[in-house]
């Protein structure tokens, strides 16, 4: 664009903001207002920067794959660079991050009363690191952002969460870290592989794409990467940290967690695991798809019986993110488009649902469905917004959830119709649990006298849920606005992966835990064989 390093600005703005906040003395809470306004302003400007990125992004097929590229040597001895750039997929996730962060901050204005300054610092650091994850093109840099995300989230859950917050925070960080560190080993292995083939270290993602990796190595490296990502998504059976983290996290934490952080897993699968190890990916795709349809149905069934609204939405995330992984496992254009779109849609609708649940729990200090009923009569506006978000979550045609799920099933059908049969069950079940909750909470007569006189949406709350509801409808009506920029990126990824044939070997060779770094000669010969 005009020479401004917009990506670095997007990453650095929140960091600078959090440093600024350090100098605001707010020990007695007297400057809470200043802190909140300052934080909101910074996040809004950051959102503006992501929109500028969108405006300056060239979505045509002939444009360079990665735009707004910035590259500075960081640790030259090992070929590690500060190397960022975005394609359409990253761009959309950046916009989602920029969009949700100010809204999440707004939800904190009433629910977070203590240590507002520290809270704001962690939220901004979280935003910066998430933007970093989505824009890093050096996998070492990617890992740094990926790992750093855990720290602010850990504090957000642990300090501002509910009763079981410490357990949830520790479980969250250990669970996700256990997956990540194995990815670190694989990342290091990749750089050595690159070194043994070309003579120089590199963590450059685009260079590593071109690397021909021996089959045995591909298998376990793919597994190491994928484990990190599917824990983050989270895919059944690695999902158990999620309900705990969600239920215990404060509302803004839940919004960011469901809205953006889970997408890091899907993004990692699309950007790293599949294109880096195409043969292994195609080999393991049916396994991933199987797990994802289990997640779709299992998440939905468990959501159905939850007495707690927040837990219900959390399990619905497990189900919805299962769709994302199914679309990725199919790895054709429709499947990937659907997965990417579903990630955006899920960010908006589930983020919104968590906001509404948060508002109800701010008013009543409970989230049990049985405590509510008949809310429509006292808070019609909130009910209307909730209905929009519920329908969007269910995937009603015309809403954003529909586009994603439809494309995913289309893509999966082209690949293997059996998975679609089961996944479709999840669509029906999602209508069941969401509508049933909606009915029990909002319809009927007010049975609990505490619910009399609950106030409807305030101006601030409108500012939160209004944009979300608008986005839910807008994304459903005009999906091409969001799909178009992603198209070239997805086409390139599909070409890269589908150009390879799945390996014909029957079982992965995992018996040797210490694969020797291959000599160039071996790699060359395997290339000839292919």
């Amino acid at each position, binding site marked *: 664009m005009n020479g401004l390093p917009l990506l670095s600005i997007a990453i650095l703005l929140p960091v600078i903001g959090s440093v600024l906040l350090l100098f605001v003395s707010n*020990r007695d809470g007297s400057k809470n207002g200043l802190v909140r306004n300052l934080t909101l302003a910074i996040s809004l400007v950051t959102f503006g920067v992501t929109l500028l990125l969108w405006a300056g992004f060239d979505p045509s097929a002939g444009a360079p794959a990665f735009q707004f590229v910035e590259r500075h*040597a*960081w*640790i*030259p*001895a*090992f070929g590690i660079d500060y190397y960022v750039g975005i394609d359409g997929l990253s761009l959309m996730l950046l916009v989602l991050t920029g969009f949700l962060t100010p809204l999440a901050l707004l939800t904190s204005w009433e629910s977070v009363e203590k240590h507002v300054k520290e809270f704001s610092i962690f939220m901004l650091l979280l935003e910066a690191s998430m933007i970093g994850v989505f824009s890093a093109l050096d996998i*070492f840099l990617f*890992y*740094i952002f990926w*790992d*750093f995300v*855990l*720290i602010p989230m*850990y*504090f957000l859950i*642990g*300090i501002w969460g509910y009763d079981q*917050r*410490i357990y949830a*925070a*520790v479980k969250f*960080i*250990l669970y996700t*870290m*256990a997956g990540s*560190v*194995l990815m*670190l*080993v694989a990342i*290091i*292995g990749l*750089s*050595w592989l690159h*070194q043994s083939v070309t003579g120089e270290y590199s963590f450059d993602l685009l260079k590593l794409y071109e690397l021909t990796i021996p089959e045995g190595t591909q298998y376990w490296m793919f597994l190491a990467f994928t484990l990190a990502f599917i824990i983050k998504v989270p895919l059944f059976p690695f999902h158990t940290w999620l309900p705990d983290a969600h239920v215990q996290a404060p509302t803004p934490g839940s919004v960011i967690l469901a809205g953006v952080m889970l997408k890091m897993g899907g993004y990692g699968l699309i950007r790293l695991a599949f294109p880096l190890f195409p043969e292994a990916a195609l080999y393991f795709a049916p396994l991933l798809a199987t797990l994802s349809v289990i997640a779709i149905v299992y998440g939905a069934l468990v959501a159905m019986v939850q007495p707690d609204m927040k837990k219900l939405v959390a399990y619905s995330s497990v189900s919805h993110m299962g769709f994302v992984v199914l679309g990725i496992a199919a790895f054709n254009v429709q499947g990937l488009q659907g997965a990417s779109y579903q990630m955006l849609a899920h960010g908006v609708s589930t983020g919104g649902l968590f906001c509404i649940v948060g508002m109800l729990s701010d008013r009543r200090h409970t989230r049990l469905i049985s405590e509510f009923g008949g809310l429509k009569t006292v808070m019609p506006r909130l009910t209307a917004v909730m209905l929009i978000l519920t329908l969007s979550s269910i995937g009603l045609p015309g809403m954003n959830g529909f586009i994603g799920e439809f494309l995913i099933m289309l893509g999966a059908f082209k690949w293997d119709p059996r998975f679609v049969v089961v996944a479709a069950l999840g669509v029906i079940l999602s209508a069941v649990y969401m509508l049933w909750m909606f009915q029990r909470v909002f319809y009927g007569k007010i049975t609990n006298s505490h619910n009399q006189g609950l106030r409807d949406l305030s101006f601030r709350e409108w500012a939160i849920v209004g944009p979300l509801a608008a986005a839910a409808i807008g994304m459903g009506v005009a999906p091409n606005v969001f799909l178009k920029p992603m198209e070239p990126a997805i086409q390139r990824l599909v070409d890269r992966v589908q150009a390879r044939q799945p390996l014909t070997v029957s079982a992965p060779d995992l018996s040797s*835990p*210490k*694969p*020797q*770094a291959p000599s160039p000669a071996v790699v060359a010969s395997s290339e000839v064989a292919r």
Partner: protein
Amino acid sequence: MISSSFDAIIPILCVALAGLVVLLAEAFRGRDEKMPIGGLAIIGLIGAGAASLLLWNRNATSFGVVTADNFSLFVNLILVAVGILTVIFSSQTVDRDRIPAGEYYAIMLFAIVGMMLMGQATDLLVIFLALETMSIAVYILTGIRREQQQSTEAAFKYFLLGAFASAFFLYGVAFLYGVTGSTNLDRIGSVIAAQSMSGNPMILLGVGLLIVGFAFKVAAVPFHMWSPDAYEGAPAVVTGFMSTGIKAAAVAAFVRVFLSSLEPMITEWAPVLWAIAAATMILGTVVGVAQTSLKRMLAYSSIAHGGYILAGLVAGNDVGKAAILFYLAAYALTNLGAFGVIALLGTRERANDDLRDYAGLFHSHPALAVLMTFFLLSLGGFPPTAGFIAKWYVFSAAIGSGYYGLAIIGVLSSVVSVFFYLRIVVMMFMTERDARPVPAPITAVAYAGLVLSLIGVLYLGVLPTAVIDFAQASISTIF
């Protein structure tokens, strides 16, 4: 030529001289006269650091047994940093605990003399001499609070076990001398290589005994038993000093002996060290989980960190050698910072090192809690701190030599370690303070020391290039 033959020991002389001056100052001090004795120590240490920098790339040697190659100079600089930070933290605790300042600083400086000599020695007997100089000084430091039973007990235990380890080491030296006819590292290396005697049982026995001696000083499993007791009994500042200084010096000598003269035998000793490194990482982290005393917890953590460093040694490649140096620097800054916080929170009566003592620290001492959090995150290996780059570096070395298993054990054990580091964070940030008294305020000098450590930790974590290049240059001149 006389002057040049002294060149290599100038850094050591600076520190030794400072030690003597400190002793004299103490002798001439009036009964209640205040004297900036710590300042004298710092001047000596800065002198040693400056000398080390001036000797850079000159490969000076003295008397044929002491060298000032870049490797040892890098270690010297780490030791200077360790010394300066320790003196800064001591400034508050020496007065508080009524430790005789002159003796304390002098002994500490003499310990650093031993440490520096250990990194610079190229002769097994000189290494032994340095080992003893360092150890005896540290035994005394461990028990410097004579009126405290726990402190005395720790010193005694440490002394007895340390004496055993020294004997093992010396016995190993004797075997190597018996077979090769020399204690000089270069000679030993060339004799072994020339006569291809790596299968010789006498040599194997000698090498095994050397491993025992070094593993004891590095606190590697199964020779780690002394360290939790010694670390817990010693004053916290001394613990920080021990856990970083001794480790740096012992690892330096370990690397020099095993990757120069014993390198031809790498296929013999690497599997042994592989097992020791793996056991050290696993035991250090798993047992650390069960601790409630912060000093003990960090003692086990430093055992585990010894294991990570050994992983670099097992790798035995150039990346590994540089990684060890980087790791030592990162670990020294981080661990000293953490022990500094523990030391500053103690009082004369109580060490205040129980996990419960940290409840709500964020509310009473927000700055200390934040500093401690950075140190703990660095120990746990989170970006963007020194600990992350250091871990990445050693595991990169291990993977480069094909030791995927060791790297996987390493990263998984570091996840376990995160669990107990986070317990402290949970206490500081997420728990309300109970009725225990709030510890005394911290002096500005001590804060400055902590902030210095933090700057180092972040510098190594965010802009590690300069130090990585420096470490790579350090290993290029030898081996």
